[in-house]
């Protein structure tokens, strides 16, 4: 079986999406033959400008404005055989993978975490040589394995997969399919960019201070370390109630509920109200002088010590 990457050339983060596709292939598609990539995009120039690739050849489906109906038209026209199609992790990838499978009588799974082929020796004869995919279900409480019954197999990737560096150089463009004016239902459209805010909601790294920070002067040390770590500063409720930071920096149920990649807490005890606010963090570090503080069991890594020298040292390292 051959696999193909399907790339969203309209996306600002197209390179990151491609890196994750590469990462996925490297981890789970070993030994499978790679076919040409399919890139839906504004123009050939956009693709050439990438200067990175993860497939030698590519077929372009182009239109000035993205419309799933136009891309699907190009996709389904082009694809004659079966195979495995790996879409990116954005909404477009999810929508297109599902609708492409529907049009071609294939099967699709969205937000796949991994993939494997069942072995010849698998006990259940029905499952032999089938594609299996794992994804999160029940609002991330469970993980479910699915077997895909029909080709073409179309999957979109889950967010936050491991990535793999792309190869330098451009795609060899085999063909460009122009799909202008195929979204007749759209009479007009306008894009409104979002004002960039340094809010807690979207922060990748958060440094959260609690009552253990003791006073406003010590908050300055936290601020400094946060600049070094490129982190947003947040506080727990006791710290906010002490006015060490304005209320819009408050994390927890009466403030922001966040899910950064890394959340470092300093002098936070870990009250339920606070923890609920950081529970979705991918990685939690707790620094507290009290080894029995509840936060110490809720963190991935804990340091039993005063936060001040730790913060100062972290700041030195980051310099």
């Amino acid at each position, binding site marked *: 079986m051959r696999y193909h990457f399907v790339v969203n050339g309209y996306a600002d983060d197209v390179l990151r999406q491609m890196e994750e596709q590469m990462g996925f292939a490297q981890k789970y598609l070993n030994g499978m033959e790679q076919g040409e990539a399919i890139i839906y995009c504004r123009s050939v120039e956009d693709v050439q400008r990438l200067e990175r690739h993860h497939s030698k050849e590519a077929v372009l489906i182009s239109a000035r404005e993205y419309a799933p109906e136009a891309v699907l038209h190009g996709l389904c026209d082009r694809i004659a055989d079966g195979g495995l199609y790996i879409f990116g992790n954005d909404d477009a990838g999810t929508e297109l993978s599902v609708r492409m499978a529907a049009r071609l009588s294939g099967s699709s799974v969205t937000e796949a975490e991994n993939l494997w082929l069942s072995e010849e020796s698998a006990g259940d004869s029905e499952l032999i040589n089938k594609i299996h995919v794992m994804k999160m*279900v029940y609002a991330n*409480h469970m993980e479910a394995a699915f077997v895909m019954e029909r080709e073409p197999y179309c999957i979109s990737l889950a967010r936050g997969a491991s990535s793999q560096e792309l190869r330098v150089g451009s795609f060899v463009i085999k063909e460009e399919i122009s799909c202008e004016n195929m979204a007749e239902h759209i009479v007009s459209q306008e894009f409104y960019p*979002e004002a960039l805010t340094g809010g807690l909601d979207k922060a990748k790294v958060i440094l959260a201070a609690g009552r253990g920070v003791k006073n406003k002067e010590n908050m300055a040390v936290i601020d400094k370390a946060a600049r070094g770590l490129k982190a947003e500063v947040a506080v727990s409720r006791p710290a906010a109630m002490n006015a060490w930071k304005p209320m819009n920096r408050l994390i927890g149920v009466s403030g922001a509920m966040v899910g950064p990649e890394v959340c470092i807490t300093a002098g936070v005890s870990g009250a339920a109200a606070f923890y609920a606010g950081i529970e979705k963090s991918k990685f939690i570090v707790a620094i507290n002088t009290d080894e029995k503080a509840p936060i110490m069991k809720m963190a991935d890594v804990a*340091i039993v010590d005063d936060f001040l*020298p730790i913060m100062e040292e972290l700041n030195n390292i980051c310099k």
Partner: protein
Amino acid sequence: MKILGCFKVVPDLDLIVEEDWNIENHLHIDTGYAKLIWNCFDEGALEMMLRLSDLSEGLNVVYKLSALTIGRQKTENFLKTLYALGFSEGARICVEAEDEILFSPEMISEGIANYVKKIEGQDVILTGIQSSDGNNKMTPYLLAEKLGWPCITQVIGLEPIDEEHLKVTSQVSGGCIVRKVKTPCVFAIGNAPCSYLRIPTLKAKMKLGKRPVTRLVPEDMGMSETAENVRVTALNPIDKKRNTVVIEADSPQEKARCLYEKYLKERLSEL
């Protein structure tokens, strides 16, 4: 303009006791005891329909709001709430077993498509982008394909224009797009700013909520012969506990260095 809101009633997963997540060799979870709630994206969709209707006041457009759900008898209370809020039609495709509609987006979308084709024609269909239990993220897209309609995803706002057009706001990476859209169309509702459904008063419930719900059987909606192209084979619990590693060293400085080198450096560089 006839607008259909398709919703799923789901168990409140926050109320599931820990041991029920730790099952093995089952293809669904026992959620039968947990309080039933609107699937959050669908709730946003239904509120969006009501707001659209509110906005049409004084304009020359009439919106006829209908709602359809697929599920067990208990979900009819939700349809009656919608009646009390001003929906003019409520229908349920009767499926009593929870697990039959969990990982069955093909069947669900087939049911909705046939409702629209055979029972009540519609101009617009709204449905949440995914359900909190199945997390399939497929139904609106499959529905669009089955009807041959276009689809707009991550819709967060609707405003009236005229009998054949709507102003549709959808979220995309880096901002949002506002489009003038010609019906028919399927809208997959994402993180709408108004995701909570308003609540009818007891008086409105007494007055409007008593109308019977239209009941349909899956066989008539072409659902029984619809096969899924993807089949669930296993369900595994996820260990949410964090196995805390305590960093031991002689000085705080060393601990900080260890924290950085071992745990932070790589994670921070990936960002």
